[in-house]
C-alpha cells in the first residue's frame, strides 16, 4: 500500500513566508527513515533493536579488510609502519521482536555457513591496540541491501520491521582514535552519504517520522523588485536568472495571483539549463576578428543543421526523443544516448556515476516505446592520478579516489543491469580537479514499429519502478551551477544512490508490456523527476496528477519534494484505461510497484494536486514556451602560441616508455576488467585483444543472438587540442571516433555520431566563444565526412571555486561517440600483430603536427601546430574500411595519442610479436626530423598489417583511392620494436615488447596483478 498522508486540512495556512518554508525544508532533511510500510501512528514505543555482527572466519582470507588496510595506508594514516591487520565486519541492525530461535534463523539467512562467523548482541570490545571504525549510510540515504535483508527475513516469517546495514572495520593500529577517524573518513567512507565513527561501537536508532500534511504554499512574487527576485531564486535554489524570474512574475501578474511553491519549482526545473539547454539552443552573437555573426539557435544552425543537410534515409529519429534512432537491420533500429553526471560524481563518485549509468539506461528504455539496452560506454576526465594530497583543494576529492569511486559505481550498476560496458576512455588534466567529467552512454535496439510514441487524452499516467524519496532534490538546478568548496555540504540532498536491481526489474516488465501494446508512450524520470516526465509527456495534451498516490520510501516528504524528487529507477507510461489491469498484474508478478499518478487530459494544462489540495495549475504553453529568449555574447580570439625548439636525439626509447606510462595513453586494465563486457553474449572485438591483450580501437558486438549483423562503438576526445583551436578539436574528435570505428571494419557510410559538450560557464563571452567554434567544427566535420549527428547533450558550468576564490574551469571537453552498423561481424579486424613476415603499411600523411599532442605534453609544452583534418580524410577512411572488410589485412590500428611510435608499440606487444620499421619510408609532407616522424599526431592515419599474398591487392585499392600510403616495415618473430631513423643510419628506437608492455601497464597507480 502506498503511504497516504491525510488530505490537507482546510484550515491550512494559505501563506507562509518563504524563508520559513526554506528553514522547514532544511530541518526536514535531517531525520529520515528507511521504512516502507504505513508508519505507526501514533508512534508506538520504540521496538527492540538488535545488532548482528558477521565476519569472515578468522582463518580465512578477508580481501575487503586487506583492501581497507591498503586504503588507510594510501591516505597516510599516522604510525603507518605499525599498522596491523584490518578485518571487516558486516553489521545489521534489526528492529523487531526476535527470540533466540528467530535469531538463529536470521543468522542462517544472512550469513554464509562456510565462510562466516556471526553473533547477535553488543560485540565484545576489540582487543587493546585495535580500534573499531564504523561506516553507515546517513539516514535517508538509500540502503538497498538493508531492504533486501528485511524482505528476506520477513519472507521467512521473522518479525523484523526495519533493517540498517553498517561496515565495521577492526584496525590494529597505535594511531589515536582521532587520527584513525580522520584517515577513515578519506579512505573508507564518504561524509556526504555516510557517517564514519571511530572508537565507540556503532549503534542505531530507527527514526519514525510522521507524514507531512500537504499544504498549498503561495510565494508572494508580484510585489518584489529585481534584487528580491534574484534573492528569492537563490534562496529557493531555483537557479533562475533575473530575466527568467521577471518572466515568471509577469505571467502571474497577468493571472492576478501569486505562484505556489510547486509552480515555481516546476518552472525552475523545466527551464533549467539541464533540461532546456538554454545556451546551446539559444541565440548567440559571436564576434571573431572584428567580425560578428549571429545565431538564432546555435544548436539548430550547427550540429542539427548538418544532420538535416545530410538527410540520411537510415536516420529514423534524430534530436527529438530521448535518443536518436538509426536503422540497424530494417526490422530493428539502434539508438544511443550519452549523458554527463559530473556534479553528483564530484561529491559522491560511487552514487553519482552509478546513477549516471542508471539514468542513461532509462533514457534508452524511454526511447520510443522502449528499447532493449545492448551496450554501455563510459568516458571520464579526472585530475592527475599522482596529484600530491596537499594540492587537492578543500571540498574536492583526490582524483584517484574519484576514479575508484566512479569505476565502482559504473561497475556495480552496469554489471547488475546485465548490459556489457564495451567502450570508453579516460582523460587526465589538472583542470578537472574539483570538477571531474563523467560521461555514460547506452545503446539499445528497438523494433521499427515502436519508434513513435504519443500520450493520448484519457490515458492514465502510470509511474512504476522505485519509490519516491528525498533523493536528488534540485539535481536539475544543482547541475546548472558551479561547484565550490562548500558543494559537498550544501548539495548532499542532490546525491542519489542507485539500486540497479530495481531498474533491471523495470527493464524486464517494460519490454514485456511494450510487446503487449499496453502503453502509448513512456519516458524516464530523470532530472526533475515526475515534474519533468509528466510535463514533457503531457506537453501536447495536458496532464493532471495527484501526488498523494505516490508510494514513498519513508513518510515525511512534502508535496513539492515528491513532485521534483530525482529518486532513481522510476518510469512513467501513458497506459490506456483498458490495459491498466493487465499492466498492473504484470508488474506485480515481477515485484515491480506501479500506481496511477494521474491522467492525461486535453486542456493543455499541468494540474498538480495532493488529495484535494490544488498545488499547481499551469498552462503547458507557459511552461514550455514561456522561457524568455536571451541572446548571449560570445567572442573568440586565437591564442598566441609558439612551437618549441626540438633537439634531435639518437634514441627515443625513453620517450616512448614515458609516453606509454602517461595515464592517458597507458593501460586502463584495472578499470576495464571490472566491467562485464561479455554479458548478452554479443562481444566480438573486446576492449583488450591479442595474446598479450593490447588496447582495441573500438568495440564490435553482434547484439542479436544468432545474427552476424553488428554494431561498432568508438569515441574521440582530446581537450588539449582545444587549448590551441576548438574548431580543429571538433574535427579531430570526429576524426578520432571515425578512424577508431573504421580501424575495426566499420563502414563510414553507416556511422552516426553523438556530441557531448562539457564546458565552463558560458556567461563569459570567451568561454561561449570556444563553444561556438567547437559547434561549428562539429557541423563542418559532419558535412565533410557525411556523418550525421543523431543525439547530443551539453553540460555547462563545469567549474570549481576553491576556498581562496580561485576558479578552476574545465578545458573545453568535446566527446564524440560513434555508432556504426556493419553487415557481418566476421568482416572485422583487431589491432594486434598476428604473423611474422607480414608487411606493415602506413596509411595517411605525416606532418609537423605535434601541437596539443602527447610528446609535447611530456616536454611540458603545448605547441602551436595543432593537427588539421584535410578534405582527403573521408577518402582515406573509406579505403581502409574497404581493405578491412575485404579481408586484405591481418590487423589494423589507428595512430592517435603519441603518434606512430605508440601505435606500433601497442600493435607489437598486443600480439607478442615484433615490428621493424623505417622512418625514411613514411609518406610525409615537407621534411620532418625523427621525433616528429615518431610522435606527430597527424589525423586519419592507420597502421595495417598485410600478409604478403594480399599486399598487391591492398596496394591497388589504396592507389585507386588516391590515399597516401607506404610499406614501412615488417612483423618479426622476435618480440622487439625496432625503428630505423629517417636517414637510415641507426635505430632510433629498439625496445623489447615486454618492456614496452610493462611501461604501458604501469601507467595508473592501481594494481593489475593480484595482491599477495
Amino acid at each position, binding site marked *: 500500500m502506498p503511504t497516504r498522508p491525510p488530505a490537507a486540512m482546510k484550515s491550512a495556512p494559505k501563506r507562509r513566508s518563504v524563508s520559513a518554508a526554506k528553514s522547514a525544508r532544511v530541518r526536514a532533511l535531517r531525520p529520515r527513515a528507511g521504512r516502507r510500510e504505513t508508519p505507526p501512528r501514533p508512534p508506538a514505543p520504540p521496538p527492540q533493536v538488535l545488532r548482528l555482527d558477521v565476519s*569472515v572466519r578468522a582463518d*580465512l*582470507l578477508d*580481501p*575487503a579488510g*586487506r*583492501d581497507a588496510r591498503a586504503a588507510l595506508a594510501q591516505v597516510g594514516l599516522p604510525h603507518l609502519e605499525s599498522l596491523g591487520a584490518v578485518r571487516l565486519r558486516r553489521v545489521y541492525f534489526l528492529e523487531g521482536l526476535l527470540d533466540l530461535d528467530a535469531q538463529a534463523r536470521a543468522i542462517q*539467512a*544472512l550469513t*554464509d*555457513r*562456510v*565462510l562466516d562467523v556471526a553473533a547477535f548482541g553488543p560485540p565484545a570490545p576489540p582487543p587493546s591496540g585495535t580500534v573499531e571504525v564504523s561506516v553507515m549510510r546517513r539516514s535517508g540515504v538509500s540502503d*538497498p*541491501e538493508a531492504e*533486501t*535483508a528485511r524482505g*528476506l527475513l520477513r*519472507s*521467512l516469517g521473522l518479525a523484523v520491521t526495519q533493517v540498517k546495514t553498517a561496515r565495521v572495520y577492526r584496525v590494529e593500529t597505535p594511531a589515536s582514535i582521532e587520527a584513525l577517524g580522520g584517515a577513515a573518513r578519506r579512505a573508507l567512507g564518504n561524509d556526504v552519504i555516510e557517517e564514519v565513527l571511530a572508537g565507540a561501537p556503532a549503534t542505531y536508532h530507527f527514526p519514525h517520522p510522521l507524514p507531512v500534511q500537504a499544504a498549498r504554499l503561495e510565494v508572494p512574487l508580484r510585489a518584489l523588485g529585481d534584487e528580491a527576485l534574484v534573492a528569492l531564486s537563490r534562496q529557493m535554489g531555483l537557479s533562475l536568472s533575473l530575466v527568467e524570474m521577471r518572466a515568471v512574475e509577469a505571467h502571474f501578474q497577468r493571472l492576478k495571483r501569486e505562484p505556489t511553491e510547486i509552480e515555481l519549482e516546476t518552472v525552475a526545473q523545466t527551464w533549467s539549463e539541464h533540461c532546456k539547454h538554454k545556451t546551446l539552443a539559444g541565440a548567440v552573437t559571436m564576434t571573431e576578428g572584428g567580425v560578428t555573426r549571429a545565431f538564432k539557435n546555435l544548436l539548430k544552425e550547427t550540429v542539427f543543421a548538418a544532420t538535416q543537410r545530410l538527410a540520411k534515409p537510415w536516420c529514423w529519429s534524430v534530436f527529438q526523443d530521448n535518443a536518436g534512432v538509426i536503422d540497424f537491420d530494417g526490422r530493428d533500429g539502434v539508438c544511443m544516448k550519452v549523458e554527463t553526471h559530473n556534479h553528483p560524481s564530484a561529491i559522491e563518485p560511487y552514487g553519482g556515476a552509478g546513477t549516471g549509468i542508471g539514468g542513461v539506461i532509462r533514457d534508452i528504455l524511454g526511447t520510443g516505446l522502449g528499447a532493449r539496452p545492448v551496450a554501455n560506454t563510459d568516458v571520464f576526465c579526472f585530475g592527475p592520478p599522482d596529484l600530491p594530497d596537499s594540492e587537492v583543494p578543500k571540498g574536492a576529492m583526490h582524483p584517484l579516489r574519484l576514479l575508484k569511486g566512479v569505476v565502482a559505481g559504473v*561497475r556495480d550498476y552496469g*554489471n*547488475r543491469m*546485465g548490459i556489457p560496458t564495451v567502450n570508453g576512455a579516460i582523460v587526465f588534466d589538472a583542470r578537472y580537479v574539483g570538477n571531474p567529467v563523467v560521461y555514460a552512454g547506452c545503446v539499445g535496439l528497438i523494433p521499427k514499429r515502436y519508434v513513435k510514441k504519443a500520450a493520448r487524452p484519457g490515458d492514465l499516467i502510470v509511474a512504476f519502478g522505485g519509490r519516491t524519496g528525498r533523493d536528488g532534490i534540485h539535481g536539475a538546478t544543482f547541475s546548472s551551477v558551479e561547484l565550490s568548496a562548500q558543494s559537498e555540504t550544501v548539495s548532499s540532498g542532490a546525491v542519489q544512490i542507485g*539500486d*540497479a*536491481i530495481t531498474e*533491471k*526489474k523495470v527493464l*524486464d516488465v517494460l519490454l514485456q508490456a511494450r510487446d503487449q501494446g499496453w502503453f502509448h508512450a513512456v519516458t524516464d524520470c530523470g532530472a526533475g523527476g515526475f515534474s519533468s516526465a509528466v510535463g514533457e509527456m503531457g506537453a501536447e495534451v495536458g496532464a493532471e496528477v495527484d501526488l498523494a498516490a505516490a508510494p514513498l520510501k519513508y513518510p515525511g516528504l512534502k508535496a513539492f519534494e515528491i513532485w521534483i524528487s530525482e529518486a532513481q529507477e522510476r518510469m512513467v507510461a501513458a497506459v490506456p484505461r483498458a490495459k491498466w489491469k493487465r499492466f498492473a498484474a504484470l508488474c506485480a*508478478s*515481477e*515485484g515491480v510497484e506501479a500506481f496511477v499518478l494521474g491522467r492525461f487530459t486535453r486542456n493543455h494544462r499541468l494540474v498538480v494536486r495532493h488529495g484535494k489540495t490544488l498545488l499547481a495549475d499551469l498552462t503547458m504553453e507557459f511552461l514550455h514556451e514561456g522561457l524568455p529568449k536571451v541572446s548571449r555574447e560570445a567572442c573568440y580570439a586565437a591564442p598566441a602560441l609558439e612551437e618549441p625548439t626540438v633537439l634531435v636525439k639518437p634514441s627515443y626509447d625513453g620517450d616512448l616508455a614515458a609516453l606509454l606510462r602517461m595515464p592517458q595513453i597507458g593501460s586502463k586494465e584495472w578499470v576495464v*576488467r*571490472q566491467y*562485464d*563486457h*561479455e*554479458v*548478452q*553474449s554479443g*562481444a*566480438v*572485438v*573486446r576492449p583488450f*585483444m591479442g595474446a598479450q591483450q593490447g588496447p582495441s580501437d573500438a568495440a564490435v558486438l*553482434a547484439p542479436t*543472438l*544468432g545474427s*552476424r549483423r553488428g554494431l561498432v562503438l568508438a569515441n574521440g576526445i582530446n581537450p588539449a587540442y582545444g587549448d590551441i583551436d576548438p574548431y580543429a578539436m571538433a574535427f579531430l574528435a570526429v576524426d578520432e571516433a571515425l578512424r577508431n570505428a573504421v580501424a575495426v571494419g566499420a563502414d563510414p557510410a553507416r556511422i552516426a555520431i553523438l556530441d557531448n559538450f562539457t564546458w565552463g560557464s558560458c556567461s563569459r563571452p570567451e568561454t561561449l566563444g570556444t563553444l561556438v567554434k567547437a559547434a561549428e567544427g562539429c557541423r563542418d566535420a559532419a558535412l565533410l565526412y557525411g556523418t550525421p549527428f543523431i543525439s547530443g547533450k551539453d553540460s555547462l558550468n563545469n567549474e570549481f571555486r576553491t576556498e581562496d576564490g580561485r576558479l578552476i574551469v574545465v578545458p573545453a571537453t568535446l566527446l564524440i561517440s560513434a555508432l556504426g552498423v556493419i553487415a557481418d*561481424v*566476421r568482416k*572485422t*579486424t583487431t589491432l594486434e600483430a*598476428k604473423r611474422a613476415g607480414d608487411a606493415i603499411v602506413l596509411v595517411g600523411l605525416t606532418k609537423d603536427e605535434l601541437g596539443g599532442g602527447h610528446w609535447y605534453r611530456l616536454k611540458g609544452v603545448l605547441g602551436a601546430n595543432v593537427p588539421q583534418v584535410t578534405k582527403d580524410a573521408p577518402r582515406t577512411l573509406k579505403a581502409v574500411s574497404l581493405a578491412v572488410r575485404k579481408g586484405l589485412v*591481418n590487423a589494423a590500428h589507428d595512430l592517435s595519442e603519441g603518434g606512430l611510435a605508440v601505435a606500433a608499440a601497442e600493435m607489437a606487444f598486443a600480439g607478442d610479436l615484433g615490428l621493424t620499421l623505417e622512418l625514411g619510408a613514411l609518406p610525409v609532407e615537407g621534411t620532418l626530423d625523427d621525433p616528429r616522424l615518431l610522435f606527430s599526431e597527424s589525423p586519419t592515419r592507420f597502421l595495417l598489417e598485410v600478409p604478403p599474398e594480399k599486399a598487391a591487392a591492398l596496394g591497388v585499392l589504396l592507389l585507386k583511392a588516391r590515399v597516401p600510403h607506404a610499406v614501412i616495415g615488417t612483423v618479426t618473430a622476435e618480440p622487439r620494436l625496432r625503428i630505423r631513423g629517417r636517414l637510415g643510419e641507426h635505430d632510433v628506437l629498439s625496445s623489447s615488447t615486454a618492456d614496452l608492455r610493462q611501461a604501458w601497464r604501469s601507467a595508473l597507480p592501481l*594494481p593489475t*596483478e*593480484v*595482491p599477495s
Partner: protein
Amino acid sequence: MSRSRKPRVLVLRAPGTNCERETAFAFASVGAEPVTQHVNALLAKPKTLDTVEGLVLPGGFSFGDDLGAGTVFGALLRTRLLPRIRRLVDRGGIVLGICNGFQVLVKTGLLPALDGTEEQSVALAANVSNRYEDRWVTLEATSDNAFFTRGDRLDCPVAHGEGRFLAQDAATLDLLDASGQLALRYVDPAGHLPARYPFNPNGSTRDVAGITDATGRVLGLMPHPERHQFPWQSPLFHAGLAPKAPDGLLPFKNAVRHLRRAFDLVGAKR
C-alpha cells in the same frame, strides 16, 4: 518406445538474472526446448518442474547479490522448491548453474550434496583480488559426468567478483576430489595445472572452476560457456585460429545427449 520431442529445460530467472536469453539460445541451438520463467511464476505453479527434464540457473545478479551472491535466491529455492528439484535429479534430469546460478546451487546445498545431505559445505568467496573481473580462461574437465568427458578442454569468459571456490575443511575437499566431483579446473594456456593468476582468475582452491554432485547431473561452474557459442566470439577468431565448433556449446550438447538417452527422447530434426 522413444518419444519424439525435444528435452525440455526450464531456464529460471529471478530479479537481477541477466544471462537467460543467451543461455536459452544455447540450449535451443543444440536441440533442447528451453522455457524461460520467472521464479515467482514457478513458485505459483511448482508442478512445472515435474514437466521438464532440466533446470538451469543462468548467470546474473539475483537480488542484486545483496547479502552475498546467491544468498536470497538460494534461500528461496531451499525453503520452497528443494524436494521438487531433488526429484528432478533423481529421475535422471539435470541441473546446471552458471556463475550466479552456481553460487545459488551452493547456497541451496544442491552442490556438492555430500552424503546426499543438503547442508552447504563449500563456498564461493570474494575473489582474492577483491574485484569483479572479466577475462577469458581455459578449463579442463577432470572427471566424467553428464556435461563433460574427462579431458575436454574449453575456452570461455569468467565475469564475477565472488568465485573463489573453497571447502569448509580439508577433509571435504579431499572427499570431493576422490569422488570426482571437482569437475572443472582452470588451467594455463598450455593446459597445465596449477594455473596461476590470471589463469586461475579468483584464487580458487585447487583451481576449481566447477563442481558436480555425486550423480554428475548437477553441475555448477563460474565461467560462462554460453558466451562462447558462436565462432566469432573466440579471442582467436581474428587470427584465424578459432575452433569451428565453439567450445562453449560442449556442456549444452552433452547435457542434451544425456537427456535424450535418459528419457528416451528422439530430438526433433533441427
